[in-house]
């Protein structure tokens, strides 16, 4: 697989070799495949879409076809080292529920999402249109995204839910943004933990 997203390296750096990984909304399994290659993880993907499940089967990825909107009831507490949700949180109805579930079945959660407060998106709104970009490729009428939130919003939610932000990296394309990420970053990646457990 030649295609590799810049966020894959960030995620890989947060993962120790041989960990148990759950990837929620795993698509065609390319992230898990990458983590298998560079971190030898024991990986499982969760995916609802039949086409993507088929792609995972072709890619030799362990995929479990369930609807994660219904929670992760079948998964034991703390079984996974990391539970990943890459660029899917904005398409989930049950935002708080799935974050809680991720930190129940995993020691840590890794979440990435498009930052709707990115300056180009603000510019689009000022110009009178919903943003369409590389990270938000859909039109308003056909987007799978249903939750429109920003880095600042997500920080607030974590504080409210008692979720510990262990690390946060923000990007504009593949460039790391340290100053004013809520304005200058198009995508954010978070490493999250339960605030009642020691930092890992």
């Amino acid at each position, binding site marked *: 697989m030649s295609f590799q997203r810049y966020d894959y390296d960030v995620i890989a750096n947060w993962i120790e070799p041989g960990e148990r990984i759950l990837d929620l909304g795993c698509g065609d399994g390319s992230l898990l495949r990458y983590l298998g290659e560079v971190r030898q993880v024991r990986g499982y993907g969760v995916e609802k879409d*039949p086409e993507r499940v088929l792609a995972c089967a072709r890619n030799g990825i362990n*995929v479990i076809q369930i609807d994660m909107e219904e929670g992760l009831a079948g998964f034991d507490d703390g079984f996974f080292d990391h539970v990943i949700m890459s660029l899917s949180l904005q398409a989930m109805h049950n935002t708080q529920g799935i974050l809680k579930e991720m930190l129940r079945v995993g020691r840590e959660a890794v979440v990435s999402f498009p930052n709707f407060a990115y300056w180009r998106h603000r510019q689009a709104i000022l110009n009178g249109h919903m943003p369409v970009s590389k990270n938000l490729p859909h039109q308003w009428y056909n987007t799978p995204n249903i939750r429109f939130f920003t880095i600042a919003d997500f920080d607030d939610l974590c504080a409210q839910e008692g979720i510990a932000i262990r690390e946060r990296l923000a990007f504009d394309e593949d460039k790391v943004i340290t100053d004013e990420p809520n304005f200058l970053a198009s995508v954010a990646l978070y490493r999250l933990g339960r605030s009642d457990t020691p930092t890992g």
Partner: protein
Amino acid sequence: MKEQHSVGIVVPQTAHFSDPLPLKSGGVLPQYDLVYETYGTLNAARSNAVLVCHALSGSHHVAGKHAESGAEGWWDNLVGPGKPLDTRRFFVIGVNNLGGCYGSSGPNCINPATGKPWGADFPFVTVEDWVDAQARLADRLGIERFAAVVGGSLGGMQALSWTLQYPDRVAHALVIASAPKLTAQNIAFNEVARQAILKDPEFHGGHYYEHGVVPTRGLALARMIGHITYLSDDAMGQKFGRALRHDKPVFSYDVEFEIESYLRYQGDKFAGFFDANTYLLTTKALDYYDPAFAYNGDLVAALGRAKADYLVVSFSTDWRFAPSRSREIVYALMHSDRRVSYTEIDCPAGHDSFLLDDPQYHGVLRAYIDNIRL
């Protein structure tokens, strides 16, 4: 074009075993025959063998056609050249299970000790016993390790059991439309079916062969009950609805609704070729199957011995072996650190979906099987 994808005319073979087979019930089969078919060629490394396990009414005749009857194998849409289980790559074996009525030793065969048909004296056989017998056939065929063991429904239980009884002898298990054990409701359906047979006046305690009769009424009823549970409500509704043979009620117990006609036809047809004692034995094997029983119900602990990789498949409208039952297997395998994939196929046909060739279903099977390394 279709012929290119059939394995063509196939001839069943019989293997005789004279070493006694100890059974889970405590009994012993002193000697026995297994009827089987093979498709494709065993490679030099003997690494490409795939065992296909049959369900309640299935047989060793998985693929191809029999020369005289023209009967097509029950899973011919899956097994053949260019099909998802491709016989150009794999050496595929179908076996009629012990207690069956298609040539392997069963109640309708002669008991060597008495010279009369076994009838009700044929010992109870379990999923585990079938797997043990299949392993002996594998020994006979020079197969140390199966690339895969595949089965649907009761066949899926055998595939799962293979990975627990012979963890070093199976690389992949495909467990389709199956369950880790039956529910009370499932056992209840089986019990009604058995009672229909046992209460048939022509059953004669299971020794009907000696009376020259067959408990066809009981067996047909058993099949009718089973058949209802293999179809979904929607599929039955779509196919028959409330269609009336005479366009209006005629207030009779003869066939009025088309579904009645269909069920009677299916029941009578089945009773014409299947053996009632085999039906009894096989439903009991289903009821008894419970690999977690010896582990206080802990399926994860029961699966601890397994070394295989798994594909688990369920069907959205299957209420006899519902998707939730397959997920029990999946989660237990995952929590045992086994490699496992699971798909729930959206298919309207109920439990019988596993015998159809839904494109998504066969697509996933093909993708998974293509990735099996030999």
